[in-house]
């Protein structure tokens, strides 16, 4: 079995660019051989004077279709390794109708116009300029037509499934139709122009017989329809089958669950039901269905692995498109128990959470009672369920933030203020902020699954913070010594526990001393607490797979925050030197200013905003930060997410330590020459 570049997620590599160039060469060569560098010949198809378009296009289509089917049957390639475009009826019907107008008017389509331009056709150049303009026009109008762009989205659909035929039968029928089209095309040319080169010729007869024979041969080679990319897996666990039976009465389609059914199951506290919100974290935090967990689409398959074919997984977003795509992808990866919430969150709001008073349809007393029960269970708890006991304080005051020494001085002695001093112990022992507890930030990290220096799992962190007497309701103040990023790393540990209420002292301990604030050498009296370990994984940490999936993909900015000589590969103390392809370098040291007496402060928000505005295209751009072990990158994470408010920042904790050792992962080493991964 070969691996395609798509299946390796390597379509953005220079190897893929080179192969695309070569394949494009073959494409252009074949188009020109066929005479598709002539708009008259192309347009002839619409006037029945020159049917070359039908002959060439359907021959090519049938050739590739049959060739691919044989390769799949022989086990050389799997359909899963090929990018399959979703069926979106609205967009493709309207797009197809419009495209036909453009094709007939212009006498070209985009590929043939490139060939026509090569053959000197000025009309092809003009067509291409128009097509560039049309693309720009589409972008400008996108906000108006985005509904149409996703209208009728059915995910990946194979025509033989849509028609209810077996793949082999469909291919045979399709080949027969193509052969009939060839003869009709020849006949049309003779009728219209008095001349047909191939009608009734021995060549066309032999060619027709050969195509049909090859298509029929598939029945011998792969008698069953095993090469469907979305097999209706018979490997559903027994639970999944039970679920299907349970759902049979209420489902419109086998893969949907209606809002009312979901609400009933959630209220019943059904175990084995995993509700997954695939929207961005910021939307999830604003509101989500009670009991949902938030998993970004990128990490879905991995995050849901424990629930694969166990119980029932329900995906939802605002609408249906993303969950449908995700479900198709999961199903191809063997998940047989993934369902969609019909009409998504919008449907849930409309059908379950809409107050009785706002409903247009008359409700019976029992229906009204049902709606009120739903509202009591879901509507009231949307926000509170997430943030825990924090009640009346506004989010701005409770989220991760930067504080100055005067604020901390005013808070000293408050029972909910817990100060953690992250300096080495001798310095702490000599003098510290009154009441501060000492913590070595390295104790928050350890070897996780073979990767050293990983932030520890939530239960272990919870145990450590419990020993420090930290409670979920506390405001934790983190004070660093000569490494500002010690504070941000401790912040990551708190965030993993869902403890957003922490502050980092700007200027570190040195500023506190310089300002002449109180200090002593007393050890505080600490009553250990029982900090609860949050169950679901955090949503800001990404692993190498998630990072690799973004390499070469537009729309994601990967920031390597290590010193520049490590980024370029000039220096290295890891398995390989260099950086992740496409990653940009912004050393973490550029975010801070260090004065002569070791006062480390973050640069002003305005300065940082301007500098990061240069490298991150928009506020909503997804950003992945990493360094060698995750330590330095935690500082960049804090700056981007909490100081500058970028909502989609992820932290690749394992960092270069891991990436460099995984030889399958691509590396750019500017110190040497580029070393492609394959």
């Amino acid at each position, binding site marked *: 079995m070969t691996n*395609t570049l*798509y299946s390796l997620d390597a*379509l953005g590599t220079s190897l893929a660019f080179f*192969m695309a*160039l070569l*394949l*494009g*060469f073959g*494409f*252009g*060569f*074949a*188009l*020109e*051989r066929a005479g598709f560098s002539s708009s008259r010949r192309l347009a002839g198809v*619409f*006037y029945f004077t020159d049917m070359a378009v039908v*002959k060439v296009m359907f021959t*090519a289509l*049938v*050739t*590739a279709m049959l060739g691919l089917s044989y390769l799949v049957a022989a086990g050389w*390639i799997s*359909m899963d390794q*090929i990018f*399959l*475009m979703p*069926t979106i009826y609205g967009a*493709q019907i*309207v797009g*197809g*109708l419009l495209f*036909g*107008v453009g*094709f*007939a*008017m212009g*006498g*070209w*389509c*985009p590929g043939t116009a490139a060939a*026509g*331009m090569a*053959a*000197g*056709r000025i*009309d092809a150049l003009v067509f291409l300029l*128009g097509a*560039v303009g*049309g*693309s720009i*026009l589409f*972008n400008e109008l996108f906000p108006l037509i985005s509904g*149409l762009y996703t209208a009728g989205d059915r995910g990946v*659909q194979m*025509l*033989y499934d849509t028609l209810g035929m077996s793949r082999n039968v469909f291919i045979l029928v*399709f080949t027969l139709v193509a052969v009939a089209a060839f003869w009709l095309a020849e006949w049309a040319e003779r009728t219209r122009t008095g001349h047909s080169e191939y009608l009734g010729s021995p060549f066309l007869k032999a060619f027709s017989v050969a195509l049909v024979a090859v298509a029929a041969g598939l029945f011998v080679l792969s008698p069953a329809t095993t090469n469907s990319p979305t097999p209706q897996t018979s490997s559903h666990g027994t639970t999944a089958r039970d679920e299907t039976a349970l759902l049979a009465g209420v489902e419109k389609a086998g893969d949907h669950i209606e809002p009312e059914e979901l609400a009933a199951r959630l209220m019943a506290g059904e175990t084995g039901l995993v509700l997954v919100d695939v929207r961005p974290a910021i939307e999830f935090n604003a509101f989500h269905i009670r009991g949902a967990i938030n998993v970004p689409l990128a990490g879905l398959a991995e995050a849901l692995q424990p629930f694969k074919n166990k119980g029932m997984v329900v995906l939802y977003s605002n609408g249906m498109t993303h969950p449908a795509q995700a479900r198709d992808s999961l199903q191809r990866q063997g998940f047989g128990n993934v369902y969609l919430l019909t009409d998504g969150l919008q449907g849930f709001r409309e059908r379950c959470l809409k107050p009785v008073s706002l409903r247009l349809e008359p409700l019976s007393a029992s229906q009204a009672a049902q709606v009120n029960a739903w509202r009591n269970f879901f509507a009231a708890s949307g926000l509170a369920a997430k943030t825990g006991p924090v009640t009346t304080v506004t989010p701005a005051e409770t989220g991760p933030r930067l504080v100055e020494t005067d604020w901390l001085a005013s808070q000293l002695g408050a029972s909910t203020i817990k100060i953690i001093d992250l300096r080495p112990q001798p310095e702490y022992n000599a003098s510290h902020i009154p009441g501060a507890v000492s913590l070595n930030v390295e104790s928050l990290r350890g070897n996780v699954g073979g990767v050293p220096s990983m932030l520890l799992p939530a239960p272990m962190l919870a145990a450590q913070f419990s020993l420090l007497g930290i409670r979920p309701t506390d405001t934790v103040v983190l004070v660093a010594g000569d490494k500002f990023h010690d504070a941000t790393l401790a912040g990551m540990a708190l965030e993993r526990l869902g403890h957003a209420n922490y502050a980092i002292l700007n200027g570190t301990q040195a500023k506190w001393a310089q300002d002449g604030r109180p200090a002593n050498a007393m050890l505080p009296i600490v009553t250990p607490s029982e900090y609860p370990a949050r169950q679901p994984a955090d949503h800001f940490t990404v692993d190498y797979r998630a990072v690799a999936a973004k390499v070469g993909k*537009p729309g994601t900015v990967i920031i390597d925050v290590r010193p520049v000589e490590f980024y370029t590969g000039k220096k290295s103390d890891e398995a390989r030197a260099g950086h992740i392809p496409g990653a940009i370098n912004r050393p973490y040291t550029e975010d801070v200013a260090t004065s002569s007496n070791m006062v480390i402060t973050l640069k002003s928000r305005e300065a940082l905003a301007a500098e990061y505005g240069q490298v991150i*295209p928009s506020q909503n751009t997804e950003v992945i930060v990493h360094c060698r072990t995750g330590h330095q990158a935690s500082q960049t994470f804090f700056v981007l997410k909490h100081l500058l408010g970028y909502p989609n920042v992820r932290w690749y904790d394992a960092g270069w330590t891991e990436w460099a050792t995984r030889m399958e992962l691509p590396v750019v080493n500017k110190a040497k020459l580029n070393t492609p991964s394959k």
Partner: protein
Amino acid sequence: MNTNPDTSKSGPRPYANPYLAGVLLGLVLLGSFVILGAGLGASGGIARIGASTSLCLSPAHTLGSEYFGKWGTQPMNYYLVFMLAGTFVGALFSALLANRVRIQVERGAASPVMLRLGYALVGGLIAGFASRLAQGCTSGQALSGGALLLTGSMVFMLCLFASGYATAWFVRRQWHD
């Protein structure tokens, strides 16, 4: 008949047998499936040129836009851009071999040049727009998606030919001799 004495002694050579050219095209497409794991495409590359143009004209607006914005600051770093470049070079190679390169506005002898160019421009505009909407053109959707037997691609192809035939009569003057 040769009207261009400095290119070659002989005139343009005839086109290949369309069925054999189709087999060649099909094999290239198959190669694309096996090597890239994706079909052939042309409009994707054109759209990238559009995004790049838009970036030059108004970077902030483009990066903030919903569709082009997600392609980032380097939209040309995309395999279909390279494929489009290859298509041009491959066609040039074939056209030179067959002595078919002629700088001309291809049209019916009785058709004004500006009429033909006007249709080409508007046709291009519509096709460029439509291929973004449908996420592909004759190459990426109809041919590649058709060979994969994708429902949406087949629907696209059907609609394309239906409206092409419906439109052709209205724009026939550009081909009148």
